[in-house]
Structure formats: structure tokens, C-alpha cells
């Protein structure tokens, strides 16, 4: 009898167990990134920048160099690395609070400079790490610790669509939104990450992948219902698709 592993843990993941809650999207995306890095054979020249958010400890799980960054400043830290080590592959991994709230200026300016880095954006519509506060991407009416009566558009504004915002800039090379609401979504997410990292390897410039992601705890749902929330309610507000392809705006 012969056994062939047809699905195994990627080399770019350590075998440390994560601190994430059951069903947390971070775990899924970590694996996808690791798989991408394995396929591109760039593990030894990849440098990750971990955000402040639930994934702050990503360096324990990723089997390549990773540095922490102050909350929201991940793209600037990535820029500071990439500019002095242009042949390394540098990506920033960020939550919605990190990327779209406190880090908004850094996000936009890094994209506008067209830094040759990859940004992986985990949009789970909530602040996980700090206990479920409203994120810039929390849905209208969504109840969180800081929107106890639901997000009110009048006083809090509507959820921010980051792909659309960045798509108004000239420089980004690839912008895509995916949703890991099930195996098909995961497949698309893997493909999007591959496109994004490949672009960087080829020196094409800035790539951005937004991943709609479950946070069962603070989406206040069971894990499987959180997947549904991601695939229906979130995806309804944040349409998935490619926004920028090879530097050109495309219809999502």
C-alpha cells in the first residue's frame, strides 16, 4: 500500500497551535499565505509584517521572518524594509481596524507610492483583539461593543470599502476582494494571493488582497453561521472580485 499526502501543512507554517478562537478566519488565511509562499519558493526571502490585532502573534505561526509593527503602521514598516532590501518579498498583514482606521493614511500613501509590496487585508467587520468594537467595516446595524444599538450611519458613517477607495489611485497593480465563506471562496482567495505575491516577485508593484473573514466570537455567531454572514451579508456590502488587474481598473 502506498500513501501520498495530497494535503499537508505547508512548510511556511510552524506547527505551533494558534491562539485564535474556533473558526477564526486568521487561521485559514495564514495557511493560504504559507501555501502561496511555498509554491513560489520564496520562504527564505519573505518578510512578513504583523499588525496589532488578533494576528499580532503571527510570527509564532509563520515559518519565515516576521516583524511586529505599531498599530496601523504596518505599510510604513513594510516600506522601510522593502526599500533597503528590494529583492526580498515583503507583505503586510492587517485587520480592518489596523488598515482602515488608525492606519488609513499609511495605507493610502503606501498604495499611492506603488510600493512593491503585498498587503493582505483581513476584513472581519470588527475589532477582534480588543473585544469586539466597531470597525470601519462593521455593517450597518451591526451590534458591537461600541455600537450597542447597531451601527448608525448618521453618526458613525457607513462601512468603508477599501478596495473601491484604493482603486481610485493610479499606482496599485492588483486589487482584489475575496470571501473565505467556504471552500470555493478559499480557492479564490488562494488564487488572489498567488496573483498578488507573483506580482511582487515580478516587480510589478503594489498588490492588495482583501479577505472577508469570519470572527465568530465578535460577529456574535456560531462558526458556521459566521461563514454564512461573510458570504451573504458581508459580501452583499463588499462585492468580491478583481478591481485592478495588471495596473488597470476593471469592473468588479
Amino acid at each position, binding site marked *: 500500500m502506498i500513501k*501520498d499526502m*495530497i494535503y499537508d501543512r505547508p512548510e511556511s507554517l510552524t506547527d505551533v*497551535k494558534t491562539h*485564535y*478562537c474556533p473558526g477564526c478566519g486568521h487561521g485559514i488565511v495564514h495557511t493560504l499565505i504559507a501555501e502561496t509562499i511555498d509554491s513560489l519558493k520564496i520562504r527564505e526571502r519573505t518578510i512578513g509584517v504583523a499588525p496589532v490585532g488578533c494576528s499580532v502573534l503571527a510570527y509564532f505561526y509563520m515559518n519565515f521572518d516576521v516583524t511586529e509593527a505599531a498599530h496601523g503602521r504596518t505599510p510604513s514598516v513594510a516600506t522601510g524594509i522593502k526599500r533597503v532590501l528590494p529583492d526580498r518579498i515583503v507583505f503586510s498583514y492587517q485587520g480592518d481596524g489596523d488598515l482602515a482606521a488608525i492606519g488609513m493614511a499609511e495605507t493610502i500613501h503606501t498604495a499611492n507610492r506603488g510600493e512593491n509590496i503585498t498587503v493582505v487585508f483581513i476584513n472581519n467587520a470588527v475589532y477582534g483583539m480588543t473585544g469586539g468594537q466597531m470597525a470601519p467595516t462593521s455593517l450597518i446595524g451591526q451590534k458591537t461593543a461600541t455600537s450597542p444599538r447597531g451601527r448608525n450611519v448618521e453618526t458613525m458613517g457607513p462601512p468603508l470599502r477599501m478596495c473601491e477607495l484604493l482603486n481610485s489611485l493610479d499606482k496599485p497593480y492588483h486589487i482584489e476582494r475575496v470571501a473565505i465563506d467556504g*471552500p470555493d471562496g478559499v480557492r479564490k482567495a488562494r488564487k488572489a494571493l498567488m496573483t498578488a505575491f507573483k506580482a511582487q516577485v515580478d516587480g510589478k508593484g503594489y498588490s492588495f488582497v482583501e479577505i472577508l473573514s469570519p470572527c465568530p466570537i465578535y460577529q456574535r455567531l456560531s462558526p458556521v453561521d459566521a461563514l454564512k454572514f461573510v458570504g451573504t451579508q458581508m459580501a452583499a456590502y463588499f462585492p468580491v472580485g478583481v478591481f485592478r488587474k495588471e495596473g488597470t481598473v476593471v469592473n468588479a
Partner: protein
Amino acid sequence: MNFKIHIEKERCKGCGYCINACLQAVLKMSKALNLKGNHFPEVEKSDACTGCRRCASMCPDTAIKISKVYSESDNKTSAEKK
């Protein structure tokens, strides 16, 4: 030819994504708990497994590995690996 689902039960947090993802109802949730106190998937209908990897691709905790199992007679080589 056949597929084998390896579940590292101590990694499992019991989210149920794998079970939810499997179109062939190969997996079901255990009655038992692992050391952390979570239920975990168990292979119920091993034969039905098509090796599609949907279960594993959804696992946030890389608790699932999948292998292809050939009887000696199967004229396949391991070069076919994904």
C-alpha cells in the same frame, strides 16, 4: 484507490467548518472531547471521500491532512502528488 483523512484531534477547535464543507458527508462531529474540551470531526463514511480537499482547505487550525492510498496493484506513482 482510496483517500485517507488524518485528523490531528488535539489541534481541532471544533468549529465544524470541515464537516460543513464536505459534500459527501464523510465527516461527523465526535461525541468525545479532546484535551482542550472541544468536539472534533471523525471520519464516518471513509469510502465516500473523493479527496476533494474541501474539508482541509477550510480548517483554520491545519488539523486535517489528506493522503491518497493505493493498493500495490494500482499503477500510480507518487509523482502525481498535487
